[in-house]
């Protein structure tokens, strides 16, 4: 039996997110558990006149390669992959893990080499995306593995995911996302005028400088679901303290109740109730790993809980997130790191945010609708 939400999600991605047109070459990739969504995307892409093809990975094979492959086999990347990234007009990535911890016992060095070899190919594709030559969208197909991480039944998790993508109801999902996109764009434009942000909450009082940086609206084009505005703060200016109420997860390892103190942009003190050594090891990875690369407002209010998946967690309506490590060049970020670790701070109960001294956000909501600079001038 086909799930109408899957069909609607497929239509939303090929139409709204990727704007696929006649003659475009699009690859739909994921694992074999993503088959229903992959097939729906294939049909939806055909209906838009595009040329889709599907490539599904078998879960367990990469794990087998990492465990048993020779050095040469680990490093091998298919010429077909190199060829494909040059030819694709669009790529849909379906995250669908039956087991989100399947690399839990893998040798970290071997796993890292496997990932690094393939990252060259994906980086080349992202270069083409950044140059406007190709588009991509990442989304998730609900599986028991992801539901288990979220501590939900599969049926409940499906509801959660499809609600977050706004494909559950009768309305036109694209219309919803277009509306959200314009309000996020207006919010980003308004934040562009801000020099300094102050975030106040339980055990939290953090000052960030965002002057001269660009706020970017994440509006469902690159990720589905989506819903945040983000920038890269001035790397040397962050000062104060922050406490993260949700677990901070990196490479499947959880660190609980993280507290960080910043001076001149850099973490100078770190505490955690569990996983502190992992946290500190990551902070020492390289020079930029203890600087903030991102500050963002989560604005998808259909995402109302933590589910141990950053695709959703960073967009929880009423939260902010801060990433240690790499910044975004397109936002004006100047530092690169091997780390980009998003940590989420729940501000829904009693958080406050001040922009240049003026209160703009309380208890998980902006106080005023976004007024873009152009509108204010008028």
């Amino acid at each position, binding site marked *: 039996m086909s799930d109408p939400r899957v069909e609607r999600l497929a239509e939303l991605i090929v139409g709204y997110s990727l704007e696929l047109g006649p003659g475009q*070459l699009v690859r739909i990739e994921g694992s*074999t558990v993503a088959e229903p969504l992959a097939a729906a995307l294939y*049909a939806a892409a055909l*209906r838009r006149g595009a*040329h889709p093809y599907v490539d599904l990975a078998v879960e367990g094979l990469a794990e087998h390669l990492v465990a048993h492959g020779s050095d040469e086999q680990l490093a091998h990347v298919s010429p*077909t992959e190199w060829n494909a990234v040059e030819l694709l007009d669009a790529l849909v990535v379906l995250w669908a893990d039956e087991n989100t911890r399947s690399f839990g016992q893998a040798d970290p060095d071997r796993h890292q080499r496997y990932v690094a070899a393939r990252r060259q190919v994906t980086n080349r594709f992202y270069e083409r995306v950044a140059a406007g030559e190709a588009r991509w969208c990442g989304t998730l197909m609900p599986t028991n593995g992801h539901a288990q991480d979220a501590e939900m039944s599969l049926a409940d998790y499906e509801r959660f995911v499809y609600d977050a993508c706004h494909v559950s109801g009768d309305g036109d999902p694209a219309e919803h996302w277009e509306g959200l996109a314009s309000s996020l764009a207006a919010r980003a434009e308004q934040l562009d005028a801000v020099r300094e942000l102050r975030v106040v909450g339980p055990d939290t009082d953090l000052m960030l400088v965002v002057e001269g940086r660009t706020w970017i609206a994440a509006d469902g084009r690159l990720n589905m679901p989506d819903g945040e505005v983000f920038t890269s703060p001035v790397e040397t200016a962050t000062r104060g303290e922050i406490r993260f109420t949700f677990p901070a997860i990196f490479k499947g390892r959880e660190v609980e109740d993280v507290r960080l103190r910043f001076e001149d942009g850099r973490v100078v003190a770190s505490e955690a109730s569990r996983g502190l050594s992992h946290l500190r090891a990551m902070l020492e990875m390289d020079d930029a790993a203890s600087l903030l690369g991102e500050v963002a407002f989560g604005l998808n209010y259909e995402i109302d809980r933590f589910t141990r998946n950053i695709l959703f967690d960073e967009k929880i309506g009423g939260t902010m997130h801060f990433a240690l490590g790499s910044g975004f060049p397109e936002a004006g970020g100047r530092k690169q790191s091997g780390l980009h670790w998003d940590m989420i701070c729940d501000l829904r109960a009693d958080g406050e945010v001040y922009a240049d001294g003026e209160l703009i956000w309380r208890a998980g909501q902006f106080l005023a609708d976004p007024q873009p600079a152009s509108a204010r001038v008028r």
Partner: protein
Amino acid sequence: VSDKRLERLADVLVGYSTKVRPGDRVSIETSTLGVPLAREVYRAVLEAGGHPETRITPPQLRELLFSEATDEQLDWLNPVALADVEHLDVRIVVEAFANTRAHSQVDPARHARRSRASGPILERILERAAAGELRWVLTLLPTTASAQEAEMSLAEYEDFVYAAGFLDRDDPVQEWETFAATLERLAGFLGARRTLRVIGADTDLTLDVGGRTWVPGSGGENFPDGEVFTGPVETSAEGTIRFSFPAIFGGREVDDVRLTFQGGKVVEVRAARGQAFLEEMLALDEGASRLGEFAFGMNDAVRQFTRNILFDEKLGGTVHLALGASYPESGGVNKSGLHWDMICDLREGSEVTADGEVVYRDGRFLPGVLD
């Protein structure tokens, strides 16, 4: 529980059929139903030092293409797939059907259009294979759809398929090597003969095979396998043949086909069911009414007709003839868009003579031929 036979099948495909060597780039192509075998083949390729790459698609994509695509989309050839066949050293293709009749309602013209479009990929595969640059093998993973086609339970069908590949025996590779040597000897024996005459129920057909090459099918490109085939001289077929098994093409069955040849060409056609379709196919082009292949089915572990040509044409004790295109490696020169294998059961009341001498009776070569 894992089926030991699946592991053996993978080992035979990788170690015997395609002989994967270190550094070989190997594609594993199947539908999502073929995943259990794809896993085993991936493991075996990795153990052999190759670089396995899976190409796995949902089985329903073809139906979706036929139902949704415009002509322009049907004509399109994926440049990624076209480049793919250029760099591979080995292709392992696993048929794993969800529904063997999923395309029965598709307009044949759309089908033909799609086949024409993907022609260049097929041509490059055959060219590179002929040049020794690419090895490939086609096999099948038992599914309920194929079992249904064979009118068996899945467990019975699995037993049938794995027995046909000798995978129920202790050392399948050894068995295949022995069998290959037998088929090689048979090919040598037949290669020295000029005229074959097949005599059976309502059948008396004479063919000239002088100067043509007999090719043993011993598990290299099909698995399972077990036949020896050639391309008979295109103008030589004389007489009549009656095919006891249904003749199937593109999912359509024609029952009780009888053909009469003169000067190599079909001059009379009769069928109990599907005669119009048969006549339509024979009129497809000039070569469609001539023989492109004559072969002996030699796999005695295949004992019944299962409506899948991969198995049916290897049925021990049968011969098959194909109307249409011949295989160049057999020396045949017939060209056609058709290659339709039809199978004639010779296990009872039959004889084959070679240059006047009886060499085969009731489905078996006489003692001396194979030893």
